[in-house]
């Protein structure tokens, strides 16, 4: 017995030594906090015949979910690039997938883009090689979440706002403020819902920036320790009134239909599904404080083995017809201004305020909080890792 134990111990130690030895040789400097110095491609060559993508569900449909929804096969026929899709369910998952270096491109939201850029996982993009870039909404170009020093790191794809949604049978007087889910939450105790991600802290910060000016919050993604603590306190109070959090949007739909949730943050696509199912009466509002939201960008991997195909894809997916199809399928505003002519629902762009720069301005797009404040106000901000810890404390 004891010899077996000893042998096991020796084996374990040997394994550990082996792992330690192997890992130290692959010690790639993780602390580098500057974007890759790679030069953008000067011209597009012939396609390499393959393209490996990391994509949000619904962004690269090849007809396998719905035979009528297929814009991948036409691309393959047009360019000869065979597309392999890996679905990423969260921004964090996408960052991890891109880190493997096996993919050519990714549809990254603003809370993933900077992490990808500064880790050197994605390369600068020469927008001259993407003809459809010219007609993309101006308010999406050269933003802090998709560019560094005026150099674009991808092509904008589409955007949307997180909305306040409520069950009109339960919530009688229409709310117009996020206060309904913060100080007003006890009224719907146990039936309030919220987005289950550390990035939701920004929603609380945004609310505080308007209601508690003495905190001095200017950008909900650039929070000092005190500001982060204030937002955490607000969310801890809210936690007592939460029924459940959601991150999978189908779960949010089901929770509203069963009455588990009656008020909380939501996406347009969730509201659309609830309206089409018609089991509960719901309404959405963009509260007066403004809102957080997402803006997605197709990015090119710095170690892409098929960069030409990726350039072709970035141009194809932002072409008016295809961008319209994706935006309509997913339920978001298309980045391509000309897409509005091709939507099957002629009011689509109006519903999503696609070309409305003022509406878009009210949205604080998801972006990765970092030590060096994202609004350039200093070096004393809190990093995303701190947000994750706070989020776990909030959930208890």
């Amino acid at each position: 017995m004891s010899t077996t134990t000893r042998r096991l111990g020796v084996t374990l130690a040997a394994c550990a030594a082996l792992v330690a030895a192997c890992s130290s040789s692959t010690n790639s400097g993780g602390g580098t906090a500057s974007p890759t110095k790679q030069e953008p491609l000067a011209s597009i060559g012939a396609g390499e015949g393959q393209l490996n993508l990391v994509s949000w569900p619904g962004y690269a449909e090849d007809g396998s979910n719905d035979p009528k929804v297929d814009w991948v096969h036409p691309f393959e026929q047009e360019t000869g690039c065979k597309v392999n899709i890996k679905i990423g369910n969260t921004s964090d998952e996408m960052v991890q997938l891109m880190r493997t270096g096996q993919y050519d491109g990714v549809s990254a939201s603003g809370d993933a883009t900077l992490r990808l850029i500064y880790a050197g996982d994605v390369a600068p993009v020469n927008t001259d090689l993407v003809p459809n870039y010219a007609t993309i909404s101006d308010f999406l170009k050269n933003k802090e979440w998709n560019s560094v020093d005026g150099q674009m790191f991808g092509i904008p794809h589409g955007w949307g706002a997180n909305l306040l949604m409520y069950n009109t049978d339960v919530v009688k007087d229409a709310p117009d403020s996020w206060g309904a889910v913060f100080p007003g939450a006890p009224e719907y105790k146990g039936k309030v819902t919220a987005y289950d991600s550390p990035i939701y802290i920004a929603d609380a910060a945004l609310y505080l920036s308007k209601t508690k000016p003495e905190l001095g919050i200017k950008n909900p993604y650039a929070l000092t320790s005190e500001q982060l603590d204030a937002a955490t306190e607000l969310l801890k109070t809210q936690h007592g009134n939460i029924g459940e959090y959601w991150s999978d949007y189908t779960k949010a739909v089901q929770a509203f239909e069963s009455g588990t949730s009656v008020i909380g943050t939501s996406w347009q696509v969730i509201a659309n599904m609830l309206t089409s199912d018609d089991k509960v009466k719901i309404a959405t509002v963009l509260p007066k404080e403004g809102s957080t939201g997402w803006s997605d960008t197709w990015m090119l991997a710095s170690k892409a083995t098929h960069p030409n195909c990726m350039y072709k894809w970035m141009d194809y997916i932002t072409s008016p017809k295809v961008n319209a199809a994706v935006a309509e399928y997913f339920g978001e505003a298309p980045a391509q201004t000309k897409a509005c002519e091709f939507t099957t629902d002629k009011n689509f762009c109006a519903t999503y305020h696609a070309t409305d720069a003022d509406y878009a301005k009210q949205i604080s797009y998801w972006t990765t909080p970092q030590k060096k404040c994202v609004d350039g106000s200093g070096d004393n901000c809190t990093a995303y890792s701190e947000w994750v810890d706070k989020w776990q404390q909030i959930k208890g």
Partner: protein
Amino acid sequence: MIAAGRFSHRFRSRLSLAFLLIPPLAWLVVVYLGSLAVLLVSALWSTDTFTGALVHTFTGDNIVRVVTDMVFRAATLRTIGVALAVTVICIALAVPLALYMAKVASPRVRLGLVVAVTTPLWASYLVKAYAWRMLLSGQGPLAWVAGHTPGYGLVAVVLTLTYLWLPYMVIPVFAAFERVPNTLIDASSDLGASGWATLRTVMAPLVFPGIAAGSIFTFSLSMGDYIAVTIVGGKTQMLGNIIYGQLVTANNQPLAAALSLIPLVAIIGYLLAMRRTGALENI
């Protein structure tokens, strides 16, 4: 000649034994112990706070944080509490059922019950968990019949996990009861013991290893579960959710590795406790 033949025979049987044993042993050492070693080592690394890239310098910070942080402690206690509650309820349900199946029921009823207990194992875990989500919903069948539902939360988690892992308790306990010879029971009652005394002094010691084996399944499966919680747990989070959050959301593999040492220690502790009772020798 005979010696040589015997030698070659022995050699051949050794060779075939080696062939039989090498694959499982290789699996155990390389895949199982190897991944455990990776886990232990990576718990001592750290990550770059912004990009989340691994920094390969040894530090004990993660372990210290796991031990001292209140959030982790609360979640650990909650998770162990759930695992123990699930185990106790499974025992309370499985023992009478298994006793009935093994000693009272007619062969036909017994077969029917064995099938009934094991059939849910054929259905997908997710389907069963979502079925409980429907069942416990505010407008679900339970609220309709009983007029009350515990809603989504810890109670729902315990209920769902008990349902999910019950077969893993019933089967070993049933097998243990079946192995108790009927003659022992007859002898006990011939000597004047009441039914309760027979159950307590004759059957219980013989069945205990079966219960212990079942409890190892229910305890360790509940310890590691993080999916049922997200479906029926409302806003509750268990240790598994925190580990998942640190690994996938925070991209902090070292802290996740350090955190996963907690269930590892808890399960090893549980196994040692079981060994002290002598249950493991009889399995």
